[in-house]
């Protein structure tokens, strides 16, 4: 049995699966149910400052896009931070932490960008026995209009300043939650680190209009005839999140900074991908909001079984393992040559590989051979682009086969060069030419 116990900046949990700060963690009732289902930790839905709580819209707060058989692929929400009284939340957090001492309980916080506001709330949170705090610098809708959430996360100097206040006024570990609604995720991560953060978590949701009601010409979800952008999440955002996690993990300035990975994690496999790209643990929301809390059981067993099958003993064995293999395009080996190969036994003859190659790529797949419908790769035209693999409905029917060194590339008429060579030294690269001169 693989050891799934997680130690994230000193916060211990029985597994690396936390529920992200969001509707599922709004109150004790939900969190109790989550812990019963097996979640390793929760980040309590974001607390605001003392006083009259925020209010939410009373119409639809969520929108979705669907794939086959109405499977939810992308999700969007316009719900704000907790709309319950601060003290009710604090009381419940304290009780839940007492009930579940082995689980991680993190308080997400969003108060105005003023030192006094942070100074005021931190002791209140600390008193609950929470294991740490997460600074919500990511919420892209509503709160950002009031100068909080993503409005802070988009200004690295503010991030650094607030993190520094938090480190000054609490002994709790500080996790800084980043917004993806920026052009370079490394900048806010570096700022958080400079401010002394213990970790970053990402991604928060992405600005989005999930769909438009074509009868009423209004964005969905529509509240009384009008809509606003929401925060996009769910399976569709995973690739964006993975890239941002990897960018921070491989940036020399932030390398080694603990990361809590968030963004469309739905299965154990998604979670494993975040871990190997440098996340110390993961946070989940949309998958729970789609299927309920029980999904964590699949995640735990899937991760554990995969680790057992591959001989990985614990999370340290896998965290960051893929980071060294993430590189810039310019360092990719241009002498690596692969060709698509279609397994005729598993080909169902849908013809999609042919038509996409013919219409949109390199005209490298046959449609007929000897007058019979037959799909075969022409090695003298194939550039190895992987489009056919991407569109083939049968898994493993089309594979990319590496040409061994010395083998003839029929397309170029040259043998495969065994040496690694990248763009930085390529003769067509003007920079490389200059360097040579």
């Amino acid at each position, binding site marked *: 049995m693989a050891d799934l116990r997680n130690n994230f900046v000193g916060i211990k949990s029985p597994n690396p699966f936390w529920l992200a700060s969001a509707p599922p963690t709004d109150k004790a009732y939900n969190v109790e149910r989550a812990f019963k289902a097996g979640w390793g930790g929760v980040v309590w839905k974001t607390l605001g400052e003392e006083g009259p709580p925020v209010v939410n819209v009373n119409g639809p707060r969520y929108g979705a896009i669907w794939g*086959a*058989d*109405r499977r939810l692929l992308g999700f969007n929400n316009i719900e704000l931070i907790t709309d319950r009284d601060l003290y009710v939340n604090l009381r419940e957090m304290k009780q839940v932490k007492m009930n579940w001492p082995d689980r991680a309980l993190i308080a997400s916080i969003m108060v105005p960008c003023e030192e006094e506001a942070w100074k005021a709330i931190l002791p209140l949170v600390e008193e609950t026995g929470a294991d740490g705090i997460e600074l919500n610098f990511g919420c892209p809708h509503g709160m950002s209009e009031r100068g909080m959430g993503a409005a802070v996360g988009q200004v690295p100097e503010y991030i650094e300043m607030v993190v520094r206040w938090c480190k000054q006024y609490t002994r709790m570990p500080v996790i800084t939650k980043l917004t993806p609604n920026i052009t370079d995720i490394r900048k806010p991560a570096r700022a958080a680190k400079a401010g002394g953060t213990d970790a970053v978590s990402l991604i928060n949701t992405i600005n989005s209009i999930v769909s438009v009601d074509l009868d009423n010409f209004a964005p969905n979800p529509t509240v009384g005839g009008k809509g606003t952008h929401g925060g996009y999440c769910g399976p569709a955002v995973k690739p964006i999140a993975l890239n941002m996690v990897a960018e921070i993990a491989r940036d020399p300035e932030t390398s080694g900074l603990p990361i809590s990975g968030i963004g469309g994690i739905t299965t154990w496999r998604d979670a494993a991908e975040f871990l190997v790209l440098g996340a110390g643990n993961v946070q989940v929301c949309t998958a729970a909001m789609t299927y309920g809390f029980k999904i964590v059981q699949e995640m735990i067993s899937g991760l554990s079984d995969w680790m057992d099958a591959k001989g990985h003993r614990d999370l340290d064995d896998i965290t960051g393992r893929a980071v060294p293999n993430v590189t810039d395009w310019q360092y990719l080996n241009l002498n690596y040559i692969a060709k698509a190969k279609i397994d005729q036994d598993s080909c*169902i*003859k*849908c*013809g*999609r590989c*042919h*038509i996409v190659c013919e219409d949109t790529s390199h005209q490298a797949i046959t*449609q007929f051979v000897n007058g019979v*419908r037959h799909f075969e790769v022409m090695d003298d035209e194939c550039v190895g682009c992987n489009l056919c693999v991407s569109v083939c*409905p*049968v898994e493993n029917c089309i594979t990319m086969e590496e040409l061994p060194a010395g083998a003839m590339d029929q397309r170029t008429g040259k043998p495969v060069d065994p040496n690694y060579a990248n763009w930085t030294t390529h003769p067509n690269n003007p920079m490389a030419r200059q360097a040579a001169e």
Partner: protein
Amino acid sequence: MGTTQSGILGGRLPLADYETNFSDLHPALDRHEALVASDRCYFCHDAPCMTACPTSIDIPLFIRQISTGNPIGSAKTIFDQNILGGMCARVCPTETLCEQACVRNTAEERPVEIGRLQRYATDIAMKENKQFYTRAASSGQKVAVVGAGPAGLACAHRLAVKGHEVVIYDAREKSGGLNEYGIAAYKTVDDFAQSEVDYVLSIGGIEVRHGQALGRDFSLGDLTEQYDAVFLGLGLAGVNALRIEGENAEGLDDAVDFIAALRQSKTKADIPVGRRVVVLGGGMTAIDAAVQAKLLGAEEVTICYRRGKEHMNASEFEQDLAASKGVTIRHWLQPKRIALKDGKVAGIELEYTRLEDGKLTTTGETGIIAADQIFKAIGQTFEASGLGSLAFEAGRIVTDAEGKTSAANVWAGGDCVLGGEDLTVSAVAMGRDAAEAINRAFAAATPQASAVA
């Protein structure tokens, strides 16, 4: 109250049972089911299903239109190729046509439900009476169509679209041909055949004259004289004879008449059926008769076919359907003699057969099956009359690839021509293509308009 009394009787079942037994074999898909089913289509390039369809409907496109919430656009894609797409969706043996060719069979042995999806889209368009076609400006050309079956209707519709005037002659009281008289009732419920005829004819420019039989009320010569072109979609009006003792006994009936009577009956309770029924034949007609005899309350129904299972024209699906309704299918049995009692059918003596060097021979061994009713479903024949010197081969009209017969300005299609496939969808394709050919012939004969100097 039902009865298992011997003899040929109506009302064998309680009334409500008839309604259940003759309800829709494949109920319509609802919107959600259609979306799920359409999502399974891979949108194949040069799709095998499309090639397998005799009318070459763009199946991937119409299914994609369903999946994107555009069933009306989907229906147009279907009707562009097959104006009787609604009936074909119900009666096509899809398991041997489009759905057999579906690549999902290779992937997981379960094709996309093309037939039911086609019905989904066409039902919506027809329910809304959405008309997709308007007539071109009148050409002044007149065409006679003989037979208001699938071939004739498809031909007439396409001709009307092109702006020609069409008169359809049909010997029966209603239009539709086999769609109205020749298909099991549970495949086309709610008088769909007539609704479809109305839908097709609403294009305008088509007059239908019922009760007009070729050879009795008019001849081909009359038509070629009065019209610019003639299309023959005559179908097969005759039935093969058994040529055995007792052939004319009371209780020995033609399956096609039984099927037609069932279709014209509202309640089905008025259709008499034997307690023990034997159906002779191995095609779709045999299955339709046998299954419906069982659904009418016959206690025992046996299909006897003189060759093996692998030779049956009825599709695997139809054979399974019959079995599921309790019909027994027996092979390698050839009728030898009708056993009579008081001049009525009492049973049938059959002789075992086998193949010897590819030829069917009898083994000499015989057996008797008791029956109070026997249906012949051993094939239909073309009854030629009033056709003058038209060229025939193997008892069918000879045409070229475009449906043109040996006679000037006469085209033909459907079951009555050599190469006819006994399929609604093939008849539609032949009627449609003949209309295109007629239209081309008209265009070729009309001098090009030239500029006036």
